């Protein structure tokens, strides 16, 4: 991490002492943890007082089974500064069962479709989003497919009503035939 970015992170922590964590460096990429109550304010600060004029990406991760339930969902904001040629990742954690987060569409209009995508696939509700509805899945779809507990479904085969089991249970003993990997 270069000096200007570490200074910026220190300033950011000064402005939001209880809501921004220590900057972490993973594989040469800098990320800070931001509490979900102030994410929109932190983003506004990074845009106006900081150099980040562009929101490159918003990405969701469901850590069901590998993280405690209070940290089930992680929303990663990838910020990019054209003038300083720097990147910063904000990580926001959301507990399962209370999937709400403030929208940053008023900070960067680019967030509009990105947040819709995260809503569509993870069911995270972005409060204050002007038009929060599904974007890639059909409007009447039920469930949020990128969640880890979303059933993968099997494939119907044309022979006597058999099914190819979904990919996550293939290779496990079938309940009906008892043979591993057999079509059940």
């Amino acid at each position, binding site marked *: 991490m270069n000096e200007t970015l570490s200074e910026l992170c220190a300033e950011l922590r000064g402005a939001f002492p209880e809501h921004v964590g220590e900057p972490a460096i993973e594989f040469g990429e800098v990320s800070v943890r931001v509490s979900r109550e102030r994410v929109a304010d932190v983003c506004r600060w990074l845009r106006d007082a900081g150099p980040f*004029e562009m929101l490159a990406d918003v*990405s*969701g*991760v469901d850590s069901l089974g590998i993280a405690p339930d209070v940290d089930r969902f992680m929303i990663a904001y990838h910020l990019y500064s054209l003038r300083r*040629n720097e990147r910063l990742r904000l990580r926001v954690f959301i507990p399962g069962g209370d999937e709400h987060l403030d929208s940053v569409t008023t900070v960067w209009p*680019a967030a*509009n479709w990105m947040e819709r995508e995260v809503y569509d696939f993870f069911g995270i509700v972005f409060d204050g989003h*002007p038009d929060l509805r599904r974007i890639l899945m059909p*409007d009447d779809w039920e469930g949020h497919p990128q969640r880890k507990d979303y059933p*993968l479904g099997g494939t119907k085969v044309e022979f006597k009503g058999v099914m190819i089991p979904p990919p996550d249970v293939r290779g496990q003993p079938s309940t009906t035939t008892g043979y591993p990997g057999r079509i059940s």
Partner: protein
Amino acid sequence: MSAREVYVGGQEWGEVVRQSGRDDTLIVNMGPQHPSTHGVLRLVLELDGETVIACTPVIGYLHTGIEKNIEVRNWTQGVTFVTRADYLSPFFNELAYCMAVEKLLDVEVPARAQAIRVLLCELQRISSHLVWLATGGLELGALSMMLYGFREREKLLDIFELITGLRMNHAYIRPGGLIQDLPDTAPDRIREFLDEFPERINDYESLLSDNPLWLARNTGIGILEADDAIAMGVTGPMLRAAGVAHDLRKAQPYSGYQNYDFEIAVEEGADCAARYRVRMREMRESAKIARQALGSLPAGPVMVADPKVAWPAQLNLGADGQGNSLDYIRKIMGESMEALIHHFKLVTEGFKVPQGQVYVPVESPRGELGYHVVSAGGTKPWRVHMRDPSFVNLQAASHLVSGGLIADAIASIASLDPVMGGVDR
């Protein structure tokens, strides 16, 4: 984004129309199979006479769940999925995904593999821009441009087929390097193409650049100024046509781009004509980079030596197609039990990738193509998210189209160059 957006769900068309609240406008559904919308893009336009007053893009018709599918496949198989996202620039998808996996694995790709990656990506940038030029020309009535553009693209696709075995969806770039080296005949074929191509661009430009009809249809149409583009996350030729000299190949060089001499194509004007000039110049620059990469191709392997990552094979491209060399088969089947076990484990289970997350961007023909890859330490990706430039750039469609004529909407969408395979993933 504005209050004038029309909500388009699965409801009756009458309900869509009633939302506009005006009885003197016409709501027209363009797409998802309109020939001028570059695949299955659907635009719902509210028209006042011939003027577009609101435009709502509706996407998702080509959604195939690529990101979800990768989560139940191993890291190597992921390549065959990501290459199917943006079908005009599959090498870029493969490159960004593999670079992300390599970053997590902390492996250094051999110099020859890096140079071949650059070579193929730049050739593909040309082929992608040719499709934009051909279809964009077709949509504005320059029918001959369609024939010329696809003629040259066909030559590039033949080269890709010679090298990778497939015209599209190559799955040629793999984590750790490439699946195999260039065939012996490839450099000459590429050189042949690069020798004739600059003259071809001159032909295109003599057809279009000073053509009064082309200029009238493009100049001052679909304005997107730099500030708006940055706020909407728009990157690539769209941003460079607004006067911003931003190119990830220069700003954050990867795969050895710092070793090549090329210029960022920047134009002023921020309109469709500026985007046309940017992409034409980019094709020339790409040819320049490809020539340099071909001329300075280092010798050596095309896959990392680490046997825990490298695909266990010695592929031979014989007359009957592709297969493992007989020596290799003899070794694993007859001589070494350990080699057989290793081959079996790596092919069926795959390699493990250390826990962590990375975001790796590359400059695709349409802008910043980023891969956010999360590993939980297993043999399968925990999460792969694509930041596809078409998806983000398409948000600007409403901005480009509103206030203009419906005929100009076609020019604006063409200048966006969206590829729905990438938008919908």
